Structure formats: C-alpha cells, structure tokens
C-alpha cells in the first residue's frame, strides 16, 4: 500500500526542479553574496570557548519573578549538541524545571548553550541557575541572561511581535556580542527594540544580565525592514 505522502513527494520532486540554477549561475550569485557578520564573539575567540545564554520570556506580571530556586546543571562540552540538549533537559526536568534547551557548536568547537523559559514558570530560573561546564577552561566561559516582562496586557502591544524582536537575529547578535560595559550593552538592546517600534521599553543591565520591561503601549511604528 502506498504511503499517504507518495503523491506529494512526487510533486515536491518535480517542483523543486523549477528554476534550478546552473553551475555558472551559482558562481555568479556567490560573487554577489555579502559576508557573514554574525557571531563575532566566537570568531574573535579561536580557542574553544563556551557561551551560556539564558533567555527568559514571559508575558506575566513582575510578581511572578519573586520566586527564586536553586538549580544546578552540568554541561559536558565534549558531547554533541544533541546530547547536550538531551542531557541538560533531563537534568532540569529532574529538578522540576521545564525549559527549552538549545546547544550549538561551531566547526572550531566553540559551544553555545541557550536555556529558555516562557510563561509563568520563568521564575524558576531567574537567578538560581548554576551551570558548570566541563571540558572548557573557566576563563573561556561566559554567561549572559536576558529576561523580559510585558507588564501591560491591554495596551495594544502584539506579544508575538515583541517576542519576535526579543528572539530575532538582531537581539541574538546583541546577546552574543561584546560590549565595553553594561551601559553600552543596554544601549544596544534599546536600539534594537526602538528599531522595531518598542522605543518605550525599559532596559536594566546588571553585570551583563539584561532585564527588559514593557509597561506601556509602543510610541513609534516598526521600522521598515
């Protein structure tokens, strides 16, 4: 018996051939391709390094962050990204914390781990998360966290648009970027938010940890892409 996707796969096989580029066209398109500029932090640190990023998003009141728990997690940097994600997720679950774990390794072995929580459970990881990274020198480990609070629920802000901004490539570049001090980091976060129409967001940065608070309606329209 044919599988239900048989006809659809045949259609995909045909459609994917439409407008196929030639070898020469590939060459031409490559010559016009802009250079990649993201992930400058890792590129400037050729030695094996690890960045731990914590992004906690929640459309909740600030009171939800009052709860603090102590949670310990060990990351084995020699594991594959899939193994790290699985292992860290297990460790968090065993301690009653539900979070999404994302690990990424570049070709040169640099490691980035993101632990993300959304919703009312965000309190669990606010400041009590302790992460030990095995097989990476302590001097090559960095940690940065970003929390986000949307305090007004009926002020005309589209939560998904704000979440897109908070989790988009511009903010990702900030979260993994290098800044001389907290003020510069706060200014970079504010600039990204303002460019997407959230100029009224309040930014607080303490020792590299970022708190973004939005408690009123946007004051500017989103910038053109």
């Amino acid at each position, binding site marked *: 018996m044919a*599988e*239900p*996707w048989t*006809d*659809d*796969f045949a*259609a*995909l*096989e*045909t*459609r*994917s*051939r*439409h*407008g*196929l*580029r*030639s*070898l020469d066209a*590939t*060459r031409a*398109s*490559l*010559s016009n*391709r802009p250079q990649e500029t993201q992930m400058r932090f890792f590129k400037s640190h050729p030695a094996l390094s690890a960045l731990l990023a914590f*992004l906690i*998003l929640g459309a909740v009141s600030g009171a939800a962050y009052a709860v603090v728990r102590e949670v310990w997690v060990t990351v084995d940097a020699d594991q594959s*990204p899939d193994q790290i994600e699985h292992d860290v997720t297990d460790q968090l679950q065993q301690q009653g914390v539900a979070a*999404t774990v*994302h690990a*990424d390794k570049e*070709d040169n072995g640099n490691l980035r781990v*993101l632990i*993300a929580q*959304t919703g009312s459970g965000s309190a669990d990881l606010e400041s009590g998360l302790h992460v030990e990274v095995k097989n990476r020198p302590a001097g090559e480990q960095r940690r940065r966290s970003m929390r986000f609070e949307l305090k007004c629920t009926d002020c005309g802000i589209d939560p*998904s648009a704000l*979440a*897109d901004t908070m*989790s*988009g*490539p511009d903010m*990702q570049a900030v979260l993994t970027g290098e800044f001389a001090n907290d003020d510069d980091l706060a200014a970079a976060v504010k600039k990204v938010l303002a460019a997407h129409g959230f100029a009224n967001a309040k930014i607080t940065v303490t020792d590299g940890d970022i708190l973004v608070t939005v408690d009123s309606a946007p004051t500017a329209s989103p910038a053109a892409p």
Partner: protein
Amino acid sequence: MNDLAWNELSLLLGPIHDDVQLFARRIAGSNAEGDDVFQEAVLRAARKLPSLRDRGKFRAWMSSVVVSVHRSRCRRAFWSRFLSREDADVVGDDGASWADERASARRASAALATLRPPEREAIVLFELHGYAIEEIAEIQRSSQSAVKSRLVRGRDRLRAFYHSLEPRSQAVPTEEVCRG
C-alpha cells in the same frame, strides 16, 4: 572565493551540482531557502576542500557540508521558534485545498517540516534521491542503525502529519452526506 578555489571546486561540483542543489531545496522547505543553504555550503566547501583527502568521496562530502549548513540554520532558527505561536495555516482547512501539484508539493514540504533535521535529511535522501542507508550514514556521519531509526521515526511523524489532515474531512459528516 578566488578563481583558483572556484576552478578546483567546480571540476568536482559540476557533475553533481544539480543533485546537491535539489537536496538542499528539499530539506530546506522552499526553493529560495534551499538555494541559500546551497550557496553557503558551496562557500564552505571551497574553504574546506583542501582537507578532503579522497576526492572520490566528494559527493558524500559535499552532501555532508549541505547537512552541516542546514543544521546550523535550523539551530539559528531556534531563536525565533521556541516561543509557542500559532503558525500560518499553510496546510489549509481541509485536504481538498491541496488539489494541484503546487499545493501537493507545499504539503510535502509542510510534512517534512514536522521532522527533526536529521530525520528530514534521511527521509529526503532515501525517498527522493534514492540513496542507500550506508551512503546516508556516510553523509550524516553517523551509524547505519541511527539512519534506520531516523527513517522509522521520520515515517511515523509523516504518517501522523497526514493523519492529522484526515479528521476534518471525514470525522464529522455533513448533513447532506448523512441523507445521501
């Protein structure tokens, strides 16, 4: 990429150019995204070509580079997808909306998008490109048993996807059908 690097790469890439480009398009979810994956893979391949000792294995090696780029992009995309949001209804409200070839291909892409990247790559290589399991294992740099598991899990997810399309058109018969 300088001319020397391109000339060396193009000699190897020429015979398999279309096949690898098609692979990138089919795992990426759209032709445009696939072309971007392919371009990035070609650039990366040009940089790393000196490290390939056995040029006879270029086809599998090049496909591995595409897999690597694809995985990297999926991981980058993580940042914009871990929030639970309602996706656009690319599937349509019922199966009948997928009547023509274009819609059928889009449904295939939507079905493949429900798979994890390694499963998607394995399914595309096996089902659409006719690769053997040992060849896929070489491309994915994993064991044959891992590839078999990915194929099984991938097919299960595909069945679940297509099963999810069925109830809307079958579970609740219309009044007219009941009368008929």
